[in-house]
């Protein structure tokens, strides 16, 4: 029954907006801290949401990053309209990237994004249609690890 208490927040993400790119994940981190999630959980959610956000900035036209929190879990959902991923299995591999030279020169596109998201989440689901967009859904469980400080 506890699961009925839910917090939802949505952040609009604009493709190629490097000035504001990263702000949404910062706000997610701040919110999770205020909600008394332990530092390790917040850190994982911060890294995963940052990668999800930057993937949209780098590869999509625009998209939405949503945070849903229940007392037991953190769910982050990225839904974008953009180029999509032709081969998800390949894209999940460490070091694989379709990033252009310009993106790499900015320090992105090392091919660690998706694997980093997976590493920092407990569940990850990804679907994509080439030419339409990509949806990434992750869950970070917060069971039992709640801090009281």
């Amino acid at each position, binding site marked *: 029954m*506890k699961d009925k*208490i*839910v*917090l939802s927040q949505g952040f609009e993400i604009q493709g190629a907006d490097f000035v504001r790119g*990263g702000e949404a*994940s*910062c706000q997610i*981190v701040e*919110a999770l*801290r*205020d*909600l*008394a*999630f332990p*530092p*390790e959980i*917040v*850190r994982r959610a*911060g*890294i995963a949401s*940052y990668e999800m956000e930057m993937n949209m900035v780098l590869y999509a036209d625009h998209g939405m990053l949503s945070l849903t*929190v*229940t*007392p037991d879990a953190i769910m982050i959902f990225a839904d974008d309209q953009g180029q999509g991923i032709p081969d998800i299995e390949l894209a999940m591999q460490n070091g694989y990237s379709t990033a252009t030279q310009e993106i790499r020169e900015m*320090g992105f596109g090392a091919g660690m994004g998706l694997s*980093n998201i997976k590493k920092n989440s407990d569940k990850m689901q990804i679907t994509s249609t080439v030419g339409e967009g990509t949806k990434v859904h992750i869950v970070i469980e*917060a069971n039992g690890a*709640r801090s*009281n*400080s």
Partner: protein
Amino acid sequence: MPGPTAKDIHHALRIDESRCNGCVECTKACPAKAIRVRGGVARVLPERCIDCGECFRVCPRRAIIPVTTTYMDLTRFKYKVVLPSPALYSQFGPNTMPEDILQALLLLGFDYAYDKAYTCELVFSDVKKFIEENYSGDPFISPVCPAVTRLIQLMFPDLTDLILPFRAPREIAAKAIKSDVHKRLGIEESEIGVIHITPCLAKLAAMANPPTEEKSFLDGAVGISEVYGSLLGALKDSKAEKRDQPLHRSSGTGINFGRSGGEVAALGIEASLAVSGVKETFNILKAVERGKLRDIKYLECQICPGGCIGGPLTVQNRYIASNTISSLVKLFGRKLKVEEMTDLEEYDRNYFRLASKIRPQAIPALDTDTSIAIGKMRLREQISRALPGKNCGACGAPDCKTLADDIVRGLASIEDCIFVKSGLAGGRIAELKGIRKR
């Protein structure tokens, strides 16, 4: 803010209520959002203050007073040692040598003046070894600036593990001085006072409120600006005086610790970064948090722009001060004096490393129970939307978002907003009052 530890936290500033007129400059300048105007005067929330001194810099009425050590506090010590920050060497121009300054300090009544720049060199030769042996993908963050340490404890709690587990050079020096003086002169350590000459408030606060449970070896601290006048006078005499023992031991590498980049230069590790300034420090720590600094082995952060030479208690313009340091570094060379020194007995190398971990001191969550916290957060969002968003600060909080946060934490009420009070806040307030009644 009521908190179990609030009473125990000591800060290095106090507000002179006879001078404060309740303007909102300090609340706006505070990067930690730790100041509120209440009852017409500024009040510091002790568990949020990071001792950076930004409020002290901006206060137009000089109502923020550093709580430094007074002369009376020092009379209880039989033997008084002064330990100046290397930033002091930058304050008198390139023709005043560190030796002149240390000798001048003796003329002010200290029994001994100790060159902390030398300790910095010594400690960082060990730090270099430590980093090379222990680096495993995340940068080590410098433990030197106490305001940065506190900023991390409060606002980046998950990064406390990355703070280099070394004691600050000033603490290491203070301990070494006490055991050395005791050995040489037979004076009990409790009768030896070690006084730091500091460029900032943060080091004052760190003495009373160290980042770990252990107690500080420093017995007091005085701002550079407080001794500057008398030092200028003493310098004239000290240059003419005959000296029986040289006090200055460091090379240019140690002197360089007075400014941003000094630690990085001393380490000589290519994959390291030096950052200074409050905003810049915030931004780089955010980058660390996102895992963006994984190729960097050492991150030097100083809260003051330009490093300690930009401290709120310094006197000299920091660009001029930096130029003086450049001259001194050139004059004394970068080759570490530590390597040729044999009198290192005073140092216990085991003491360089911290015995206990630096723990997070995160700002309390909205509630320890996540379900209740979620409810409060939703209310906070509603309040935020209802407030005018002009960030005028007249309520006493730095901005509308912070007022909303204070309201759900029970520290303020919506009527503190002058727009709400005067009925100019628009329709959403009515909706909100309904919620609050329920």
